[in-house]
């Protein structure tokens, strides 16, 4: 269309465009300077994966189109894709209005059709979004004026677009050979007199001015995500999800963790700008769901709000340290200690925000700088330090669970293929010792060559790292790595997902790289290879599978345990829908919560038991692959007094019970 900017119009538009984009750039520059207050962090490695993420997560909107958000996700994807096309058209409008230039292809029928279709689609999506805000009002959604302003601006953009196209065609302002927009001109209005040109020019100007107002308003609002999602996805962490960031050269540092916004990395601050307050993370958080003060969305928004509050001051004064997180908002420390690091929030976030890293960085400050850790958690740390296990049970009784089983240590069998890393829970906790014994029976039955470290094994350090005591984690990890090196260990199998995760994903940060498997992965392979025979000895049973967070979400091990369960004769597997696989609900014990009291709200494990008991297809057992899950499920079943209806077990126990030699005992 020929722009209605004859005479001084072009100059006026040029000035207004400069003002609109100037306001945008000025604020963007401010925000960039605040962001650079964060500590340096290199996020440039793995370029290939970064470009792939841009295609899938940014352009492809993959993380938006997830259950249970298909409709909302699709509405958003339409608005997003629509905007990509329409923005190209907007550039064309401004260029033609100021300089008379055209963007290539804007005359083509394909482009005109696309803009037209998307304009209607976006308008429809905006109506859905308005309806949800005004009437559905999802409890986790942050409903504020900002959202309405943005939706209002988008509607105005689309309406004015449709009006100026319609009136423009009537006024005959189409350039020679240009295709008329089909939907906008479908209604063949008859405009009295010469009103069609006035209407065209008016709507055109409204549209263009709305674009400029949008540009100026954008960086003041949560809608900034349309500008920041692109870099935020590009610079997302490419570490394994289960690995926390290493605190390098820890002995030379003077402060540890996040004592102010300055100590969070620039990417963590960018996360704050990118949060669009959709509340999907809050929807999935087990702590929030059971009445704890933690809300993962608030963790991210507090970072942003604090940065906006003191950013200007910190930029001016390079010597100013900034406010510690504990003083950002009331009850901040309670929020931080309520996290189980289950990664439900990280999984749910459509714009790849990393919640756990922020929480752990703030915990690191509390734990290492302030020595301010809940007393029970502190006891666990002291126990790890002194006894090598969080319960504080004697070091030299670590291998007592294996008494009489004749399990060799690496010292006795240096040529063993696998190290079975037993872990503290299976070594000391009575219930989990049974799982360790079952693991030994299964590995033996399949003829796997393995040995344990005996009393030379020590806690892998996972609880310490997640409570925030990085130093203790590094001490424990180094001790284990030294022992592995001493015996030339190359392959490790662990029956605890926390041991598995930290050895597989975090020990490489300290130079310890091994081939690490969770025992269910190994046993599933053995079964698939025909190396392990099971017989249908016991009665048929229905078994619900509970995904441990550090097996499932943190490491993507969803199928091996399911395949293994399906291979167990007489077992029928049921899913704990909808809280299964990537939406699995935490047992409440991760992130060091195993050793902290849970006094606020409902206990997370009790909620989990309720979910299991509410299934249509009632299970007689709930199977997991994690000692902490097992302890929590046992406690939940015990507290609810339903031990006669459902028994928590480890998948390995189901396998061991069907080994030929155990059949008689079970019959």
């Amino acid at each position, binding site marked *: 269309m020929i722009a209605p900017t004859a005479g001084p119009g072009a100059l006026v538009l040029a000035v207004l465009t400069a003002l609109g984009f100037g306001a945008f750039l000025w604020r963007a520059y401010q925000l960039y300077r605040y962001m650079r207050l964060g500590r340096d962090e290199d996020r440039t490695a793995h370029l290939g994966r970064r470009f792939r993420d841009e295609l899938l997560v940014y352009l492809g909107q993959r993380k938006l189109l997830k259950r249970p958000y298909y409709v909302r996700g699709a509405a958003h994807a339409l608005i997003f894709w629509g905007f990509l096309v329409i923005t190209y058209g907007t550039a064309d409008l401004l260029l033609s209005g100021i300089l008379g230039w055209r963007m290539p292809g804007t005359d083509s029928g394909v482009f005109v059709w696309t803009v037209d279709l998307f304009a209607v689609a976006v308008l429809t999506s905006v109506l859905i979004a308005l309806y949800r805000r005004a009437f559905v009002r999802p409890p986790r959604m942050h409903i504020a004026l900002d959202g309405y302003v943005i939706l209002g601006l988008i509607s105005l953009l689309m309406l004015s677009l449709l009006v100026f196209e319609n009136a423009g065609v009537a006024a005959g302002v189409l350039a020679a050979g240009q295709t008329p927009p089909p939907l906008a001109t479908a209604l063949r209005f008859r405009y009295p007199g010469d009103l069609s040109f006035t209407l065209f020019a008016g709507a055109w100007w409204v549209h263009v001015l709305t674009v400029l107002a949008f540009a100026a308003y954008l960086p003041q609002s949560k809608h900034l995500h349309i500008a920041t999602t692109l870099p935020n996805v590009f610079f997302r962490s490419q570490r394994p999800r289960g690995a926390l960031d290493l605190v390098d050269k820890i002995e030379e540092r003077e402060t*540890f963790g996040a004592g102010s916004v300055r100590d969070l990395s620039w990417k963590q601050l960018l996360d704050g700008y990118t949060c669009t307050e959709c509340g999907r993370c809050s929807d999935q958080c087990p702590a929030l769901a059971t009445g704890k003060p933690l809300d993962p969305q608030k963790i991210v928004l507090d970072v942003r709000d604090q940065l906006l509050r003191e950013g200007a001051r910190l930029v001016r004064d390079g010597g100013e340290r900034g406010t510690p997180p504990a003083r950002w908002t009331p009850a901040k420390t309670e929020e931080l200690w309520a996290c189980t690091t289950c990664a439900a929030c990280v999984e749910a976030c459509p714009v790849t925000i990393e919640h756990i890293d922020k929480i752990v960085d703030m915990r690191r400050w509390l734990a*290492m700088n302030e020595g301010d*850790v809940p*007393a029970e958690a*502190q006891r666990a740390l002291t126990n790890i330090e002194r*006894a090598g296990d969080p319960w504080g049970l004697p*070091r030299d*009784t670590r291998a007592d669970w294996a008494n009489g089983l004749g399990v060799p240590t690496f010292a006795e069998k240096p040529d063993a293929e696998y190290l079975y890393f037993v872990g503290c829970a299976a070594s000391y906790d009575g219930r989990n010792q049974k799982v360790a014994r079952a693991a030994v029976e299964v590995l033996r039955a399949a003829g796997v060559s393995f040995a344990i470290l005996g009393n030379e094994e020590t806690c892998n350090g996972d609880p310490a790292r997640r409570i925030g005591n990085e130093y203790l984690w590094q001490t424990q990890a180094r001790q284990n790595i030294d022992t592995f090196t001493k015996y030339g260990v190359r392959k490790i199998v662990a029956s605890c997902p926390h041991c598995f995760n930290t050895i597989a994903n975090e020990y490489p940060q300290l130079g310890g790289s091994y081939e690490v498997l969770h025992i269910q992965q190994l046993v599933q392979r053995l079964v698939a290879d025909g190396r392990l025979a099971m017989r249908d000895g016991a009665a048929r049973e229905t078994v619900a599978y509970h995904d441990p967070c550090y097996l499932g979400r943190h490491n993507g091990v969803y199928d091996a345990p399911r395949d293994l369960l399906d291979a167990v004769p007489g077992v029928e597997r049921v899913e704990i829908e909808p809280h299964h696989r990537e939406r699995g609900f935490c047992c409440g014990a991760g992130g060091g919560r195993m050793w902290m009291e849970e006094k606020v709200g409902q206990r997370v494990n009790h909620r989990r038991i309720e979910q299991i008991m509410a299934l249509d297809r009632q299970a007689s057992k709930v199977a997991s692959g994690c000692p902490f899950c097992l302890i929590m499920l046992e406690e939940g079943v015990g507290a609810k007094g339903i031990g006669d209806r459902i028994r928590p077990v480890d998948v390995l126990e189901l396998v061991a019970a069907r080994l030929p030699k155990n059949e008689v005992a079970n019959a």
Partner: protein
Amino acid sequence: MKILVCIKQTPDSTVRVKVASDGRSIDTAGVTWAISAYDEYAVELALEHKDRDKESTVTVLSAGPARARDSLRQALAMGCDDAILVTGPSAETLAPLAVARALAKVIEETKPDLVLCGRQASDDEQGFVGPALAEVLGWPHVATITKFAPADGGVDAWKEVEGGHEVWRANGPAVLTVQKSEKEPRYPSLPGIMKAKKKEIPERDPASLGIDASAPAPEIVKMAPPPARGAGKVIKDGDAKAAAAQLVKLLREEAKVL
């Protein structure tokens, strides 16, 4: 206020203690060592005072083998200002009274306003050194305190008694033995640990302090672990009435408690 805390290094409470082959001492192979529990309370109590009054200083003092240095460092990491170790060839076998005399020598040199000890060590549970130290110094001694506060050039000490507490006052320097601190002993912050690593811990040799290692002391003639506990008995047979009858019978005839 200048506070000095005497600590002893003992096996950590998480260690399963084994009797050595001589039958009269413990096997120290593989043992993790720590500050004796009540001494740790004493350190915490001193630091709680230092938290309130930044002018105060806390010195830790220990007499024992060279490994006791690690426990002094732990106390420094918790926040104590300096540490002194009395050690040397004879330090391993110092009789308790000789320990008190050696500590007293150092205390006479450093001239603190107040000395804190744990009420007893968690290895031999003798509770000897604190009162003996007060005796050697000629200072007053208050036992099993839970709180103290400076008062008119001396100190007030709280001790819990049946149904309440008493406040005792010493008009000058005193030795207090500690029952418990207000809070659980603090966990050192990492900067604290790093700072403690760099601190010098001066050593004093008992001989150079003029201490004779031998002093009247009882001798341990035998050490034995507690007898192993037998397995419990579960009465499974019969209905509640029969089970109750059997329980009464067993309590009377086997356990002999009725």
